[in-house]
């Protein structure tokens, strides 16, 4: 999935990567391409993890992991960081979700009576970005679809999602439906249909994902 997201990167992009699968995208930036990673705690130009020798408690990312800064990075306050995000200055945002629906709504932060950790920066990210990719599994472990007609969980953002990448497919949200754009290798259109609860439009030809 991270490899597929990496194909959406462009030279000169400022990118915010959420925690989990999105973070892995950083490992697949094509050679010769310059991409600057934004971390919402106040770092533009996030680098690799440090070594045992260079680790520094004052140098973390939004996932609270110790990181380094690349050459040419900048560091700023949380208000400045979210000015970049809300102001639409970030070119691509990649984040996870529990559910997405055909209206482009996203639920990613709360499961009532079960999970109450908070939204962190996710609500600002989805409200501020124009170009968002949601990465998640297509269905839950019980087989329940996460691509829905209407999100059942409290929303993170309304009508803001246009692109969804799952373990099974690449889909775009258009006019109240998921449009199946690509299949993951070895995955049938039938399986995707079966595991998509919201309205799904399947074009005549659905190519398999390419990774390079």
């Amino acid at each position, binding site marked *: 999935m991270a490899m597929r997201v990496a194909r959406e990167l462009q030279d000169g992009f400022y990118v915010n990567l959420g925690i989990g699968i999105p973070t892995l995208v950083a490992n697949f930036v094509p050679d010769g391409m310059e991409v600057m990673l934004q971390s919402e705690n106040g770092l533009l130009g996030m680098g690799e993890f440090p070594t045992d020798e260079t680790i520094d408690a*004052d140098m973390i990312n939004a996932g609270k992991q*110790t990181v380094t800064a690349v050459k040419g990075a900048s560091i700023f306050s*949380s208000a400045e960081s979210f000015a970049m995000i809300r102001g639409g200055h970030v070119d691509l945002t990649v984040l996870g979700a529990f559910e997405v629906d055909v209206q482009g709504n996203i639920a990613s932060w*709360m499961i009532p009576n079960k999970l109450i950790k908070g*939204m962190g920066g996710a609500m*600002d990210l989805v409200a501020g970005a124009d170009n968002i990719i949601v990465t998640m599994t297509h269905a839950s472990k019980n087989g329940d679809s996460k691509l829905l007609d209407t999100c059942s969980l409290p929303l993170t*953002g309304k009508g803001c999602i246009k692109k969804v990448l799952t373990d099974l497919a690449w889909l775009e949200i258009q006019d109240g439906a998921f449009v199946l754009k690509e299949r993951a290798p070895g995955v049938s259109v039938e399986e995707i249909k079966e595991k998509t609860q919201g309205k799904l439009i399947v074009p005549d030809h659905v190519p398999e994902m390419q990774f390079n």
Partner: protein
Amino acid sequence: MAGFDKVVGSYEEAMAGIEDGMTIIAGGFGLCGIPENLIAEIKKRQTKELTIVSNNCGVDGFGLGVLLEDMQVKKMVSSYVGENALFEKQLLNGELEVELTPQGTLAEKMRAGGAGIPAFYTATGVGTPIAEGKEVREFNGREYLLEESIRGDFAIVKGWKADRYGNVIYRHTAQNFNPLAATAGKITVVEVEELVEVGELDPAHIHTPGIYVDRLIVGTFEKRIEKRTVTESA
């Protein structure tokens, strides 16, 4: 020394005047850039019924988490509180209130509070549970929420270096919410790692100008790492 000299001699003096029921704005992100010793002083004083405005609430046994141990916190205003079992327990028991606030909105609430702006519109949270009860207004065809700014009775801030005048710089990503918190306290208390001579900091590089700072103290810091992630040395 008087005049612009903000340095106080003890943590007791640094937090003098804190009372039950006050609102405290704290800098820090996770355990990074937190005012460890000012938090410890609040614990020592056993001040109760506090409203704490901070992105997170520390972890069990460290950072703001220590104020939960003796039920000193009435309400937390935070964006993410997931690292703390005691927090979750008190929340579920109804012993603790939480106002979950999007991270960017929280930062802007502090910034606006400190800048004398009572409220602002943001697209963040429109159509979500946090929009409940808030005014929605349309600008250029898009909906925005009216969010009110925050000021604290105290702001507690962790800096890196400062001079006696209270000019502060932060180190790396330990900056985070600290300069915002610093503007939004009726009384702003800053603790730093190092006190330097007035004139030593480049005026153009100062993050928090001394005008925002009421009290300054030099401390030593544990700087606990929350998630230690490393690559193999080459």
